[in-house]
């Protein structure tokens, strides 16, 4: 309880004592830990994602054997002490393949998210600022959005050799329109704000305006969008591999492992189960992260749990 200093310039005016704390012990937690405690989804998603990233980075140490080592004599063995997740149709150890597969899926997810955001940002900014280009660019973006993403990706993959890079490019192209629309939307709203007008009147150059005023406002929705793009990209990669138009079969990726094991799901479900579980958990983590970020950054939509 605070006590006022007794020295006061006004004589004999009693000052009310401080009220007792209504909510004893309530301190608004600050810092990262505080944020995490208030947003459990963010915390959970972030933690799971960090775990997956660690698995991917430490793959060479976590794997028990070479993921591409064939041993046809020991194919489709059930999970055992030797092979924690069992072996696939060519005798390769599924655990090691899943661990290495994290690398591919996370690489694809993060790369697509970053690339699509970057290019989408550039396109959206350009389109928002340069009015004559706006109509054309937006029509092109609409056109790209009209083509179903999976078909677009499969078509692009069919043009090129299967490789992780090409998969990233193919999925990125399908995701750019959404980001550019988002950014353009923000630019258009802000362009008419008075403070931007003021900045322009003051002679601030466009790049300065972008950096000072536009970017901060796009950052929040773009970050949230980026997490959704990451999640979507990982699923699309799995589907592409499932169809046979994804990462080359020489590289273990979760999608590949599932695609190869799909014929046997009735008799040897473990081949599909483990990569599916890992993929689902990772995508879930990214989605939770996105939801958490959205709640944290946009209080209107937040609900404290």
């Amino acid at each position, binding site marked *: 309880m605070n006590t006022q200093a007794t020295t006061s310039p006004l004589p004999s005016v009693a000052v009310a004592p401080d009220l007792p704390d209504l909510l004893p012990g309530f301190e608004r937690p600050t810092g990262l830990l505080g944020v995490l405690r208030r947003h459990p989804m963010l915390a959970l998603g972030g933690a799971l994602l960090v775990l997956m990233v660690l698995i991917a980075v430490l793959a060479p140490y976590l794997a028990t054997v070479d993921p591409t080592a064939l041993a046809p004599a020991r194919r489709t063995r059930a999970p055992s002490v030797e092979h924690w997740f069992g072996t696939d149709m060519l005798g390769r150890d599924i655990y090691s393949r899943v661990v290495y597969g994290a690398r591919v899926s996370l690489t694809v997810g993060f790369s697509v998210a970053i690339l699509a955001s970057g290019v989408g940002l550039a396109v959206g900014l350009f389109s928002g600022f340069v009015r004559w280009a706006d109509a054309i660019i937006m029509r092109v973006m609409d*056109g790209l959005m009209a*083509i179903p993403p999976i078909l677009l990706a499969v078509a692009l993959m069919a043009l090129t050799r299967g490789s992780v890079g090409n998969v990233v490019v193919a999925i990125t192209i399908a995701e750019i329109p959404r980001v550019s629309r988002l950014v353009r939307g923000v630019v258009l709203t802000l362009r008419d704000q008075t403070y931007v007008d003021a900045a322009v009147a003051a002679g601030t150059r466009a790049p300065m305006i972008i950096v000072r005023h536009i970017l901060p406002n796009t950052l929040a929705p773009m970050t949230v969008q980026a997490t959704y793009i990451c999640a979507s990209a990982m699923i699309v990669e799995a589907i592409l591999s499932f169809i046979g138009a994804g990462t080359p079969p020489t590289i273990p990726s979760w999608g590949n492992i599932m695609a190869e094991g799909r014929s046997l799901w009735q008799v040897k479900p473990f081949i599909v189960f483990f990569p*599916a579980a890992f993929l689902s958990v990772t995508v879930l983590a990214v989605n939770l992260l996105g939801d958490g970020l959205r709640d944290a950054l946009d209080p209107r939509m937040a609900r404290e749990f």
Partner: protein
Amino acid sequence: MFGYMVRRVVATIPVMAVVALFVFSLLYIAPGDPAAVIAGDQASPADVERIRQSLGLDQPFAVRFGQWVWLILHGDLGTSIFTNLPVTTMIAQRLEPTVSLMIITLCFAVSVGVPIGVLAAWKAGTWIDRVVMAFAVFGFSVPVFVVAYLLAFVFALELEWLPVQGYTPLAQGVWPWLANLILPAIALGCVYIALIARITRAAMLEVLQQDYIRTARAKGIGPRGILFLHALKNASVPIVTVVGIGIALLIGGAVVTESVFAIPGLGRLTVDAILRRDYPVIQGVVLLFSCVYVLVNLVIDLLYTVLDPRIRY
């Protein structure tokens, strides 16, 4: 109003043009020679060249593009390289299964997604909200084919409630038609439900904070009245938007679902055609899908004016 409609319709033309150009260029620069494929294993280079000329593959880009567009406008989507059937025939054969699947999935997703979104918004902050949203996020996170296999295993193989594959045309009876589509629709719908539920919840939350809702409660209107009579109608714009955007998602997922459940639909046709470099079919189908997407969104744009009289053009 009518002017707006006309303008919107006209605005779709450049979009379709972009799609057409994109689709055509994609395959123009593709490696692999359809003439060699048609000629077959034993043909000589002279035969292959003859076939190239007969297919018009040696003309410049602009000429080929122009010819293609001209034919399309006359309803001729070309002839498949692999089957020698007109592309329109091939599409027509496969239209019914895919359209049926889409419609059933749409109905299922909306009729499940919207109520759970409403429920989650109404009980925001409680465990019901958390559980519902958790389910929704799961719907996003598990790949379609895993769900499809699980459903097929449990309901078709083990319990034998439903067939495991195939498609029965509507003409052979409503129940057989539905029976083949239930499992694929659930598998495909999971992602859609998640999306719809989230948007519904978000939009409803926004609306439920409005003053007029408070007035309605003060007037004594019960929860059902509030939720459905007042709130949902006002929240419908973003929900309908998401339904429109989700069509593209559906088409992508349909490819996988049709593969797993052996449904002879357009999704499978497209992927087979892409992997085989059957250009005319690829062009025809992608064009068709894009057309559908553009049309659906056009309808939705026009629907806005019905749903929200404030939106005037």
